């Protein structure tokens, strides 16, 4: 019985891979002795192994056979290599098709990728054990790590894995020497595709498994056709009316989308360098130019970014009108906080912001004030919603535009850093991968935020208190 993974959310099905059958047909056509790719022999240490094909021959054949241009033939050829139907002999870890004289060979059908047959961990463990025997204990760094992990997870099967590895090595020794060499190449190519080493991009890396079986036929009832097939016409009308605002939204946010524009300085997931995250921390001193630009897109963007909110708070402190933002933040806390703390928070908010003669009295119209005060007698989560919305619109229509024209904002715009994009070489990338450290724990950042919040709110309170007392006198 194979033990499935612990975090089993029921996702056992691989996605549809309809392209594999089509690629198989293409590979079989390549084998035709008359109209296929011409193969020759590879000379290796006094043995010669047949059926080797050159990269340029493959691209030429695809160009003529499928009548496409050279660039597309190159892309198709790379797809063949990335799926594992053809494997490179000279640089096995880079799965691309080089259109020069580099040598490739076809993979045996047992090792072809298929949707039904997932590459199992047990088989990978047997392969690593065999490789251990062959290399006499000197495995690559990533292979050693995986070996240790597999030894921990598959410990109950480890006897079987060791025995099978030894038996398979002995069975392999019973074959001809050239066949043994070819088999070892084939197996290595299979595992490079299905368990790619770092920096290798294999096409079988499809992400997470699916929840429902994509090969199962979907049964749709009559209600589905009655209701859901009428919807498209309604949707079309709605879409047409929203399209202009959608276009405007996408144009403004296009440069901020990491899918469409590469993020500066470099994507940490690809280059293992976390400067991007360090520059976007909530308590950073100097934000990036992209962040500062984003604040000007809308008031909610400014409030959403913690660094932007801190900057806005600084501006309001200079204008002595920090109570609006403080009230908004307190109302947010009430809305999203624990239910047990609601009545307590409501009390403090009333005393600090709403009571006549309060230290940070907010200026809202009489009707809203009346409703809120009445609601606060029986406080619930959304009792401050009306007041909060009023304050939000006030800040948005008035204070936000003054902020955008203020010296505080212009100052931070000038000081903001625009990081240069990184250009790492392969050696530097490997160095980065080795120097990966665990980042800050979220609990640490949370504690820092709490401390910061306590510091700023007490400051405002005391200052407001003093200012108000002076005004009245």
């Amino acid at each position, binding site marked *: 019985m194979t033990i499935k993974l612990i975090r089993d959310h029921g996702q056992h099905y691989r996605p549809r891979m309809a392209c594999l059958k089509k690629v198989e047909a293409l590979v079989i056509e390549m084998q035709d002795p008359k109209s296929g790719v011409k193969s020759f022999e590879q000379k290796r240490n006094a043995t010669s192994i047949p059926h080797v094909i050159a990269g340029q021959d493959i691209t030429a054949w695809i160009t003529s056979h499928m009548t496409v241009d050279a660039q597309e033939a190159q892309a198709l050829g790379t797809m063949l290599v990335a799926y594992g139907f053809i494997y490179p002999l000279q640089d096995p870890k880079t799965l691309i098709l080089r259109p020069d004289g580099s040598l490739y060979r076809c993979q045996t059908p047992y090792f072809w990728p*298929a949707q039904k047959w997932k590459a199992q961990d*047990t088989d990978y463990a047997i392969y690593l054990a065999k490789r251990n025997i062959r290399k006499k204990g000197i495995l690559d760094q990533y292979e050693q790590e995986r070996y240790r992990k597999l030894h921990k997870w598959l410990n109950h099967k*480890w006897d079987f894995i*060791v025995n099978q590895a030894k038996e398979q090595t002995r069975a392999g020794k019973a074959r001809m020497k050239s066949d043994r060499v070819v088999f070892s190449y084939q197996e290595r190519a299979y595992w490079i595709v299905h368990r790619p080493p770092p920096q290798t991009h294999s096409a079988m890396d499809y992400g997470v498994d699916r929840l429902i079986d994509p090969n199962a036929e979907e049964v749709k009832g009559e209600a589905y056709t009655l209701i859901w097939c009428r919807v498209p016409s309604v949707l079309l009308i709605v879409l047409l009316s929203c399209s202009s605002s959608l276009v405007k939204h996408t144009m403004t946010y296009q440069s901020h989308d990491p899918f469409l524009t590469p993020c500066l300085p470099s994507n940490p997931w690809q280059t293992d360098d976390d400067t991007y995250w360090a520059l976007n921390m909530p308590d950073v001193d100097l934000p990036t130019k992209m962040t500062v630009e984003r604040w000007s897109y809308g008031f909610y963007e400014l409030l959403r970014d913690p660094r932007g909110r801190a900057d806005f708070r600084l501006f309001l402190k200079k204008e002595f009108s920090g109570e609006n933002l403080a009230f908004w933040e307190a109302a947010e806390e009430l809305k999203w906080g624990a239910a047990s703390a609601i009545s307590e928070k409501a009390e403090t908010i009333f005393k600090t912001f709403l009571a006549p003669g309060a230290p940070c009295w907010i200026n809202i119209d009489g009707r809203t004030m009346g409703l809120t005060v009445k609601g606060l007698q029986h406080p619930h989560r959304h009792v401050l919603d009306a007041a909060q919305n009023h304050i939000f619109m006030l800040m948005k229509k008035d204070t936000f535009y003054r902020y955008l024209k203020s010296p505080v904002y212009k100052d931070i715009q000038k000081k903001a850093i625009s990081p240069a994009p990184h250009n790492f070489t392969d050696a530097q990338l490997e160095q980065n991968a080795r120097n990966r450290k665990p980042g800050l724990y979220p609990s640490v950042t949370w504690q820092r935020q709490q401390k910061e919040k306590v510091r700023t709110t007490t400051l405002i309170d005391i200052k407001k208190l003093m200012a108000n007392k002076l005004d009245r006198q």
Partner: protein
Amino acid sequence: MGKEECKTMLDALNKVTACYRHLVSALGSTSDSQNLREELKKTRKKAQELAVANRTKLTALLKDKTISNDDRAEYERLWVLFTSSMEILEVDMKRSLEIGQDFPLKVPTRHFIQTGMTGSTTTVASRAMSVQNMKYEADANIDLTDLRDLEAEIAQVDQMMEDMEMKVQVAPWAVEAKQEAGAELRSTASIGNSSVGVISLCEEETKERGSWTDGEAGLMRVFAGIIFTVVLLIAGILGYLIINL
């Protein structure tokens, strides 16, 4: 004793599974042929026989309530070995069915994949069947009839695995392996020495295996030392004679 028999039979099953995997990986490639299909059929039959024998033995041993805890742990370990072998055999059989259907032998234009493998797999098959030479006696229609048989056999194996899971209550995660990481490196000396048709000895304890290879290496050293001293003596005697004569 029951344990020894079990272990020998499990080792034989292990060997046949490994050879079957080698044979299936050659299907559809240039080293495929009628002989290969026959070899696959024979290896499969042998694997089935061994599997049934193992299953009856192990279920009988595990159903016995009077065995000690240590014995029970040992039998559970053997059971995990058996089920893992069977899983691999089942997957290989299903794959050989698919590949066999995709690459039939009796068509006017055979399009086997040019993988670079040109030799035959006779030696692997003879290792699996534990015979010196393989005899090929199948008729020309082997691939079609074989595939039908294969489907029936796969159904049988599925049924057997289901029965096994239902009848025997063994928790696989509770089994502790006897060999630690890197154990395969320790007996690499023996792998070079084994010949084609020899059934491998069962590996009971790693200490035992370790001492066996150390003993063997020590014996070699002693022999080398004796030969060296003999050569020195002869050289000394000759020198003495030459000087005196």
